[in-house]
């Protein structure tokens, strides 16, 4: 036990779990005590979803070093799979919690399978070409989901991807209605489930990062040729990271989809992918705790600025640019250092004066 406590990674990971749990407990009790406004209550599940998405994308972008611009595509697959599963199991599985869980697992599995299939061609490419192919994949998924019809009638379940509306027989009811998206979805998502999802995501990603696989993946990121020459199977490890990331995004997507009464495919577009990427980069690439914090803050920030109305998104853009300049630009950093130096001297002088 003592040895375990001395281990740096174990301590760092424990800190992440502790922080997340603390955040959950505080919000949970505040919510139960009725201290949260209705809009804040609405943020709880999406925050959990975006934390999971950011952490899973960080595995790809930060740990694996592959820029992916199609994360929302996996989220969309998960969302619509989850919605269909939840609708089909209605009345068959009594517990809402269990139904939600099955829907999320289903969404994750399908997303993972597609991630594997897409990974075969995608992972042959590198750098910006990989990025553009993930972007293309995200757009294809959005396009297909936007023309997907699913529904049940007396003959059972039907599904089709067509341009003309799919016809249903007697007693027909659409679950997904093409470009109209899914409507009349039973809102199953709960905040505790969101917390469990975040914990699961953290557990998977942190364990992967600190395992033999994780070290191999990082080696591939830092120098692919060197990694290959010491016998690391580059493609296999990249594929592993890609599929794990897709599964987690699919699960998060399922929770997201079941949090709203209606949702369309256009929600899972390029902008959403970019937003998740912004969370990852702002939190620090490869830094899991950073992703958790930045996803929370950056999701809440534009929402909390609603009173500024039209100016809020422009402010968000300015914040984004300034943060990047202040954290990366050598010149800006230099100037900041000079200013802070002057300030500290001013205070020191005052101290000297008061002492004297």
């Amino acid at each position, binding site marked *: 036990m003592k040895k375990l406590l001395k281990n740096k990674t174990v301590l760092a990971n424990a800190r992440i779990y502790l922080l997340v749990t603390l955040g959950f407990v505080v919000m949970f009790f505040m919510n139960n005590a009725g201290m949260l406004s209705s809009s804040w209550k609405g943020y709880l599940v999406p925050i959990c979803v975006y934390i999971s998405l950011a952490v899973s994308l960080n595995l790809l972008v930060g740990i694996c070093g592959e820029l992916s611009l199609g994360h929302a595509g996996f989220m969309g697959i998960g969302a619509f799979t989850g919605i269909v599963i939840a609708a089909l199991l209605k009345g068959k599985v009594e517990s809402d919690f269990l139904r939600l869980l099955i829907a999320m697992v289903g969404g994750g599995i399908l997303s993972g399978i597609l991630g594997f299939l897409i990974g075969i061609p995608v992972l042959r490419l590198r750098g*910006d070409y990989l990025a*553009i192919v993930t972007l*293309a994949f995200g757009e294809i998924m*959005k*396009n297909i989901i936007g023309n997907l019809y699913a529904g049940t009638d007396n003959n059972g379940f039907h599904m089709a991807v067509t341009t003309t509306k799919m016809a249903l027989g007697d007693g027909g009811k659409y679950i997904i209605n093409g470009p109209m998206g899914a409507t009349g979805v039973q809102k199953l998502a709960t905040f505790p489930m969101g917390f469990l999802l975040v914990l699961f995501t953290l557990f998977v990603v942190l364990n992967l990062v600190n395992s033999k696989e994780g070290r191999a993946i990082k080696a591939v990121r830092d120098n692919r040729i060197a990694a290959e020459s010491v016998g690391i199977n580059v493609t296999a490890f990249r594929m592993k990271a890609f599929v794990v990331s897709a599964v987690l995004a699919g699960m998060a997507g399922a929770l997201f989809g079941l949090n709203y009464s209606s949702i369309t495919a256009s929600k899972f577009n390029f902008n959403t992918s970019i937003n998740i990427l912004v969370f990852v980069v702002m939190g620090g690439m490869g830094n899991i705790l950073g992703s958790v914090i930045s996803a929370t803050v950056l999701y809440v920030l534009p929402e909390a600025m609603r009173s500024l109305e039209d100016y809020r998104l*422009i402010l968000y853009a300015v914040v984004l640019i300034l943060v*990047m300049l202040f954290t990366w630009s050598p010149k800006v950093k230099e100037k900041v250092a000079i200013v802070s130096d002057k300030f500290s001297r001013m205070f020191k002088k005052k101290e000297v004066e008061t002492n004297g």
Partner: protein
Amino acid sequence: MSFLQYLINGISIGAVYAIIALGYTMVYGIAKMLNFAHGDVIMVGAYASYCVTSYLGLPAIVSILVAVAVCTLLGIVIEGLAYKPLRGTPSLAVLITAIGVSYFLQNAAQLIFGSAPKNFKSIVSMKALTLFGGGLTITGEVLVTIVVCVAIMVGLTLFTSRTRMGKAMRAVSEDRAAAQLMGINVNQTISVTFAIGSALAAVAGVLLCSTVPTLMPTTGAMPGIRAFTAAVFGGIGSIPGAMLGGILLGIIETFSKAYISTQFSDAIVFSVLIIILLVKPAGLLGKQIQEKV
């Protein structure tokens, strides 16, 4: 005959993509960054042109000049304020800054002009050509777009091969450090590249909105992504590649809309892109760089 009609329309859309893709590809070749704000510069150019013709009532040619001037300036300012301080930092940091600039431009436009679409009046007053007894119609916009695209292509090729600045650009894109050692002002070269790219974006914006007459703050986003795809398609960093990629993308898009399905045109276009990249991982005309240890 309808085949020829679709082909010409496809080339026309493709020509607009090609002009936008040139901006992406030049900036990528020289600054090694994906300038995601490029699509929104198109939108700014279109709004500038719209303001000049609708509010000031000036002729179309003036509006184009104003749009080009505004965008050139905008390109230089964006580069100087947002990208230049980040030179030499990880490419993702610059990418996020570019996304920030893109959000900024879109929301600034929304604040100034509102989110309601404006009806853009075409700058081309030429009558449509009718050939083969009505079998084939070529609108003035299509003709102008194709002519402008060819002119830009020729101009850029001459510029990069003949002028001092053009040669400096090629040198910087080949090897920045070596170019600097040869006495090339790298910062200035990059600024000029941004200026040219943004000027081209202004032209593309005016042409785009003349063909599709609705102008919104998000007008530039989708053509921007398409053109980026086109640039990769042709081999990013390569000027003839951007041209070829843009026009092929336009033709594929029009044909898939005409012969396969309107709803799935996005999926078809992007699937073709994926297939091309699998066969030629550096794009159609891109150079495959051999990695050395």
